[in-house]
């Protein structure tokens, strides 16, 4: 009876704790502050399990504390307590109660396992995105639309996004915490998942699987925009590339940068696509353009990429035979290269 009183007092506290948790952390990053139906579903399951488990913990703690206070040995106590062999009723009770709790958790688990595995890859209404994970950057190819971008995934708010996840090198894991749980990219295997982004905004994405030196810095952004805006972005991406105005710089940019990178239809595919890079939230996923200007960040990055991301494949400006003036001009050009959408 006594114990139930304790429980009655603790339950509201626990409920409060769960509510507190669910408003916790950055909107664009925290799993506890979901911004899409997938993450919401997952948070519901998390709350259910936290609730059940908090109950278990409270019961165990209560018994534990009671026992420790009630049955401590007084000094000089030589009495021998009754040697109890066990109690079948009690043992059956604490076998059955956990089973019941597990059923309560197990049913929605199975439900969601299948619900979240729904395949939208043939759905004409879904946006098909092929995600390729590279050491240490992300490539996003819109297979139906024929466009490719990197580091900043642009999605419309009104559609399901169906992802095809592959890796170009080692194992990575694609994760946008506030939108939905992660899925690994395995070399040689294609994984699928879907996400929805009902709210406009920029959400932080991370690589969750140790993938080498700069695993910690393999961030990306997912930017959800209105359907109209998305349509404008698609046509801007398809428009002819804007090249540097200065012919000399354009020539240098083509020979030194576009051997790996691409803008619009020009260039290669070995490195992040730069189309509209000036409008992105970050350079390299980690240099935020609201902390320093995009031009400054690009300048820093081009001068010495390894200083910001050890193990990045891009050569330093010096090794790429770019003079400081050329670096400055190219940074300026890229910073000004924004898409209107």
């Amino acid at each position, binding site marked *: 009876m006594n114990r139930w009183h304790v429980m009655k007092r603790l339950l509201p506290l626990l409920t409060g704790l769960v509510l507190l948790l669910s408003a916790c952390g950055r909107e664009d990053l925290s799993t506890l502050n979901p911004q899409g139906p997938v993450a919401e579903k997952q948070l519901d399951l998390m709350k259910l399990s936290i609730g059940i488990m908090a109950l278990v913990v409270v019961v165990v703690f209560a018994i534990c504390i009671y026992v420790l206070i009630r049955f401590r040995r007084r000094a000089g106590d030589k009495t021998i307590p009754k040697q109890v062999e066990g109690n079948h009723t009690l043992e059956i009770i604490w076998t059955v109660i956990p089973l019941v709790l597990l059923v309560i958790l197990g049913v929605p688990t199975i439900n969601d396992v299948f619900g979240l595995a729904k395949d939208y890859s043939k759905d004409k209404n879904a946006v098909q995105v092929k995600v390729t994970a590279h050491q240490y950057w992300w490539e996003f190819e819109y297979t139906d639309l024929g466009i490719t971008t990197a580091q900043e995934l642009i999605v419309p708010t009104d559609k399901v996004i169906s992802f095809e996840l592959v890796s170009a090198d080692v194992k990575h894991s694609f994760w946008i915490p506030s939108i939905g749980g992660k899925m690994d990219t395995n070399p040689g295997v294609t994984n699928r998942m879907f996400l929805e982004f009902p709210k406009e905004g920029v959400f932080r994405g991370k690589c969750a699987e*140790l993938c080498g030196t700069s695993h910690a810095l393999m961030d990306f952004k997912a930017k959800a925009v209105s359907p109209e805006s998305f349509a404008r972005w698609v046509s801007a991406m398809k428009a002819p590339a804007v090249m540097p105005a200065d012919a000399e710089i354009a020539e240098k940019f083509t020979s030194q940068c576009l051997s790996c990178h691409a803008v619009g239809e020009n260039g290669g595919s070995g490195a992040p696509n730069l189309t509209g890079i000036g409008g992105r939230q970050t350079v390299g996923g980690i240099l935020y353009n609201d902390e320093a200007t995009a031009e400054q960040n690009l300048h820093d990055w081009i001068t010495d990429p390894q200083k910001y991301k050890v193990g990045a494949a891009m050569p330093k400006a010096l090794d790429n035979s770019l003079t400081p003036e050329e670096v400055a001009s190219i940074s300026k050009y890229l910073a000004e290269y924004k898409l209107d959408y």
Partner: protein
Amino acid sequence: MDWLTTVDHKKIGILYLIAGLFFFLIGGLEAILIRVQLMKPMNDVVSSDTFNELITMHGTTMIFLAAMPLLFALMNAVIPLQIGARDVAFPFLNSLGFWTFFFGGLLLNLSWFAGTVPDAGWTSYVPLAGPNYSSGHGVDYYVIGLQIAGIGTLLGGINFMATIINMRAPGLSFMRLPMFTWAIFITSALIVFAFPALTVGLVALMFDRLFQANFFEVGNGGSGVLWEHIFWVFGHPEVYILIVPAFGIISEVVSTFSRKRLFGYSSMVFATVLIAFLGFMVWAHHMFTTGLGPVANGLFSIATMLIAVPTGVKIFNWLFTLWGGSIKFTTANLFAIGFIPTFVMGGVTGVMLASAPADYQYHDTYFVVAHFHYVIVGGLIFGIFAGMHYWWPKMFGRMLNETIGKITFWTFFIGFHLTFFIQHFLGLLGMPRRVYTYLGGQGYDDMNLISTIGAFFMGIGTIAFLLNIFITWAKPRNAAADAWEDGRSLEWTIPSPPPEYNFKQVPLVRGYDAWWKEKMEGKTAMTPSEPVGSIHMPSPSILPLIMSIGLFIAGFGFMYDRLIIGGIGLAITLGCMVVRSLIDDHGFHIEPEDQDEGVKA
């Protein structure tokens, strides 16, 4: 010299203890460096490469070179005594097991001096750990070091299975075994079934790395996911190899210091067996995000959750062992009691992780880091500390200082919760694990600082423990046979430390808690099951040491592509095996008139 050739289980136990503590300190130092690096955002105490090396070596060292050897130390020191045996079934193999573990661990840690340290995580997922993405010798040290150390573990597992099956004193039936012996029996079975999987995986990875095989090379038809399966088919039972002995220790300590027999003994045994069995069925819960599909994820979710049931049975049985008891708060018991709520917290987060769709969020975040440290540190390390304080007088004949012991407990306990509780929230707020740094302003900064402060407390606790050992060393060996006065099993019937032959006369066991039963009937000694007679002992041997050095040399030879050196190393080992086979050694006898003088560890 005596220590290099010994085949006595008690001395081998002490060797395991020293080596295990040594590696525990190395692993702990690595942990402190990790926490210092993560103390604040964009810190640069260590580089990203060094950080990845630190996390890899911290995990590998703690699991294979600290936790397991410390468990082997306790099982060597205690099991033969608890079952009334004079030694383990295969004393020579026991010694070989220690030396292969030691040289395997040494080889692994020499990588710090070679400058190429394993850095692909303790799980060594390929292709990151494959020849293309880890081109130095780092991962070779991991593969070969663990392979050699693994031989020792497997030998230990076989040895203790054979010992517990065959060498129990008369009357000691399986359902009268002390719970710690049961736990070690089940652990040994787990080792025997799980370690071969690791061996196979390591051999395949070694072939990929040294001889350009393609087991895991996707480009040539291999599969990286295959490595994950092999690794976790070993790796999940490994978790139970670690925690089941701790269950055993807790059962002994809680029961002794509450002066009560273990509540629900048979359900404890059954629960442990069930946990071990289910432990083999759930490896894929480490791979919910690998993309195995909903059917696999669903099945492994439910199977994993089921483990909570027998674990819960154990927890409540411990609580009801304490219930109505006369509880004495020694350091050993503090650790055991601290274990119960802490392990429950680790256990419930385990059930949370088992729910696959929620795990899509938790997986590879600090939530997981918090969870498994609650289980492995809050469960296993608390268990080991409880066991070391509990059996120290039996092993060394000296009582550890209780005041320092309590300082150890409180600093370690508070530091532990400070370090790891908060990491649950870091994970939920979106911090991935294995990151060498993080950007500021993401809401991680304060929690990481608190976590680092906690780690320092744990460090202080460990130092206090070492201090305790040194202070105790200076004291006389005056521990009583039944050092805690409330001992229940056979190890408390013989002097502390026990004589070389353990039992002058093998005792007759007349019931569960054999020694307690005799005491309650007013007896002061066990009834012997045999007359005093000549005791047959195995001879000491230097061969296990030389064989292990041979493997150690061979490891280096193969790693650095000097096949001749590799061959010489293998020849040394094989040569020792030939010598061992050809020379008949019948051991020696201790005659009754010499039996009274030989009281030594």
